[in-house]
């Protein structure tokens, strides 16, 4: 990766941005340039215009989606004047769209009001008063019937009381309370009340004609109005459709224009200018440098200067990392990304992760039948999870391979002869294999950790920090001593000296780097040293689960068959099928979690910092048409 500084004339900035976006190899660096003369931030008006136009077009698309994906056939520079004109046109279009939206909302509100009328009708029928009177105001009484938000009722009751009215809450539906307010007509109170009702969000409920006569007739009227509303909504939708069709082509053009204008806006925070000279910095992969310069020479009419240099050690954390592009490794890269992104210079753990994941998954869940089901299910779902289905396919194939080694098909061990052996035939050997695998895994993880630290020039860290060279020396000596203890009955002098020496070196390193009172330092160093021993021992034993789950798989299948044998012929088949589904879903899920845990905790924590950030180059966004 190289740090690139580009000096261009401000007139050429839109063209330069577009060219950088076309090459898709320039990751902007928003830090201010070293030269203090570059203080201005050009293109603010352009950005404001773009953002408003973008927002307007997106809002319009919510009402009237674009009919197709806006393809970019010709790449051209979009000037500020063109953007301004487009923004103004979109402003007018959005005003029309908003009117349509408001009309739709009013129809929704009327529909809601009809529902409330219906509820009120049912409720009015139970009240022992002549409700026909409520519709017509009298000389002595004024009526307000409607609904208010439920939590406003109490306050409103007090307020209408002050205006010499009384409030009767006769029904509550959802968040709304239906109320009748009665008081003296006319006078100052009426104006006061009107103001209070507005503030309280009071919505009038029209009293249906003939309330005191036939309820069936009223229901019919409400139903007719509802049908009319559906028709009105349909008519409005057709009008909106015709309106959208009328301006679709121009909106597509607008979308294309905004796509072309976007790179300059995206780049805006990384651009500084002084007079007519603008400076923009970024990161470019070393292999793309020559191509980028050639493309700029071809595209820019005015002179420019491009400087490239290696990243300095102090800016290593800012350098982006180019992601793994292998199609086969893509799903594994997604899982690695859940933990973090490799820092610049660090080894990308994706290939190692993929291999070790598949090996462990296969060994823990080795079965030809179950593996085939997983692989086929993943293949079947390839359109739904296009970036991840290969993960399931590979996991299934791995499970099938180990199934062949173990001779297991849906738990049956008599159908296929085992190429190696069934795990239950020699559990001790299985445990030994798992232990050996775990030791190899931890050693490789430590070596990678040491390499990663050396790669960024952290020699002391590579030697003394967690899982560094001294830790590895301790681990190897500890294993050697342990092996001798098992074989000849004694730990051995040399392994013991190496263990003590490496632990002592770690303790001294800890001591020198701790800033604390002596008592606290003694305590911390002691605990940390003890922790080193416990961590390596427990991490190694942790890998025993690899064989434990392969044994578990056989044991679960045996349990299913034992249950099935207790049934009749039909019960046997049903139990075997359900048992296999159970094994597949539950055990498969648990094995997946356990392998991820081994990878993240025993592997990544040793060699992968995960605090890098991804290379996201400036590019033209060919957005699909919104759904």
């Amino acid at each position: 990766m190289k740090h690139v500084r580009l000096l261009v004339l401000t007139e050429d900035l839109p063209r330069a941005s577009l060219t950088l976006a076309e090459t898709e190899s320039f990751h902007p660096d928003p830090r201010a340039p070293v030269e203090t003369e570059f203080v201005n931030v050009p293109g603010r008006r352009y950005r404001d215009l773009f953002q408003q136009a973008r927002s307007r077009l997106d809002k319009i698309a919510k009402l009237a989606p674009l009919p197709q994906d806006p393809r970019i056939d010709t790449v051209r520079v979009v000037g500020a004047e063109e953007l301004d004109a487009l923004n103004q046109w979109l402003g007018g279009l959005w005003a029309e769209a908003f009117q349509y939206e408001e009309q739709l909302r009013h129809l929704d509100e009327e529909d809601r009001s009809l529902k409330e009328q219906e509820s009120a009708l049912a409720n009015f029928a139970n009240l022992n008063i002549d409700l026909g009177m409520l519709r017509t105001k009298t000389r002595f009484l004024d009526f307000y019937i409607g609904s208010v938000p439920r939590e406003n009722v109490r306050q409103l009751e007090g307020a209408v009381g002050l205006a010499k009215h009384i409030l009767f809450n006769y029904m509550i539906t959802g968040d709304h309370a239906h109320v009748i307010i009665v008081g003296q007509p006319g006078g100052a109170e009426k104006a006061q009340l009107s103001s209070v009702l507005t503030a309280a969000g009071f919505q009038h409920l029209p009293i249906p004609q003939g309330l005191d006569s036939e309820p069936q007739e009223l229901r019919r009227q409400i139903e007719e109005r509802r049908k009319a509303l559906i028709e009105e909504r349909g008519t409005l939708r057709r009008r909106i459709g015709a309106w959208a069709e009328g301006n679709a082509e121009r909106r597509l053009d607008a979308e294309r224009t905004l796509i072309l204008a976007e790179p300059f806006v995206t780049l805006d925070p990384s651009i500084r200018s002084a007079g007519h000279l603008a400076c923009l910095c970024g990161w470019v992969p070393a292999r793309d440098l020559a191509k980028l310069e050639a493309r700029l020479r071809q595209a820019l009419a005015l002179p420019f200067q491009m400087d490239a240099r290696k990243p300095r050690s102090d800016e290593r954390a800012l350098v982006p990392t180019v992601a793994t592009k292998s199609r086969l490794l893509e799903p594994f890269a997604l899982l690695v990304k859940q933990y973090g992104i490799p820092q610049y210079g660090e080894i990308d753990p994706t290939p190692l992760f993929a291999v070790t994941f598949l090996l462990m998954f296969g060994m823990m869940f080795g079965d030809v039948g179950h593996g085939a089901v997983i692989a086929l299910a993943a293949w079947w779902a390839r359109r739904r999870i296009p970036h991840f289905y290969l993960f399931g396919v590979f996991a299934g194939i791995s499970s099938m391979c180990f199934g062949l080694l173990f001779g297991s098909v849906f738990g049956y061990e008599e159908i296929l002869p085992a190429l190696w052996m069934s795990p239950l035939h020699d559990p001790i050997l299985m445990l030994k294999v798992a232990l050996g695998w775990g030791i190899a895994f931890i050693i490789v993880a430590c070596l990678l950790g040491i390499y990663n630290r050396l790669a960024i020039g952290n020699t002391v860290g590579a030697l003394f920090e967690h899982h560094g060279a001294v830790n590895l020396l301790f681990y190897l000596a500890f294993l050697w001593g342990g092996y001798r203890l098992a074989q000849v009955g004694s730990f051995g002098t040399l392994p013991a000296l190496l263990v003590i020496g490496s632990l002592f070196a770690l303790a001294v390193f800890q001591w020198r780097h701790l800033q604390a009172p002596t008592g606290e330092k003694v305590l911390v160093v002691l605990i940390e040293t003890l922790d080193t021993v416990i961590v390596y021992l427990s991490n190694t034993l942790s890998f025993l689960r690899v064989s434990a789950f392969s044994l578990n798989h056989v044991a679960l299948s045996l349990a299913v068959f034992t249950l099935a044998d207790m049934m009749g012929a039909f019960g046997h088949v049903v139990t075997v099928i359900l048992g296999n589904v159970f094994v597949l879903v539950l055990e498969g899920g648990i094995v997946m979690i356990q392998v991820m845990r081994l990878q993240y905790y025993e592997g990544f924590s040793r060699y992968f910092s995960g605090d890098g950030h991804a290379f996201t180059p400036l590019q033209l966004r060919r957005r699909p048409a919104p759904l």
Partner: protein
Amino acid sequence: MSQAAAQAYLNTRVSMMSTRLFQPGQLAELAQLSLPELAERYGLAALLDEQVTTRAKGRAVEQGLIRLLLSELTILARPMSTTERALVMAWARKYALFNLKTLIRGKLYDLDQKEIRENLYDLPPNVRLSHQELFRAENVLELLRQLEQGPHALIARQAREAYEQRGEPFALEAAIDQRYYAGLARLVRQFHDANLQPVRHLVGTLLDREDIQCLVRFRFSYRLSPSETFYQLVPSSRLLHRERLLELVNLETLEQVIEALPPPLNALLAGCGNLIEVQQHLHHYMTAEARRILGQSSSGVARALAYLILRESQLRSLFSLTQGHLLELPVQFVEIAVGLTDPICPVGTMAKAA
């Protein structure tokens, strides 16, 4: 962290932070300092140097002080339980509502986007509204429609209906304020432990103060009717409960209202002839109550909220001092603004009680 440990941690945090509050007489001492001295003491020098215009300097200082207050709030909120955190966050949400009012006024008076943006507070994510969406709204109606989609749906719907019927911002802003204080009162009712009494006392005092100020303003400055005034008030759980407010809004003069107030408010406000005096006395009263809770209560959340109320008031005073220097106002005006001197306003320039 257990509840007891969280309370102990929170109380210790509050106690440590409360050493930052002004000591008696410190504000008077600060009022004598020059702008560079003031800026150096409170780390405002960089903010002032970065800006060119006086207005921009003032905005930067105000923004910096609000950021400081909200960063302290974030630290205090960390060990709190869900109910406690909801209360302090709801209190701080007034800054988001200031922004909302700015947006509404900006859209209503068709102000330039740049001008609106310059007047918005930059708030942390746990307090702010979804500005970008709201900022892109082209008119008040669209703004309120967008707000209806979020957690402020009830405020927005009520405000939109008020706006559609009246078309002016007063009803809208009054609805926003009323909902804010009603929300605080509702959150206090969620407490069922030892925190209930001190929290109810503190928020009750806050509501009492707000109710008296609104009552005086709406009844005697805006000349609203008793029913209109009452609807905008939020009954307090302390002194000014619902029945008392119903009595107070029906009175015709400020003197009658003050006489009818329950003790100690009647004694406190005796002799006040206008809204400014009422506000000043209530401010001292609120400060004294917050200090009492900060010093004597064992409730972590009540102490934290009391600290934040006091801190906010003092940061406002600091802002007034800075602003006074920036605008080159006479010292006596600045001292009136920060409450060091009693206001002497010429007759006719203030809202006098009828």
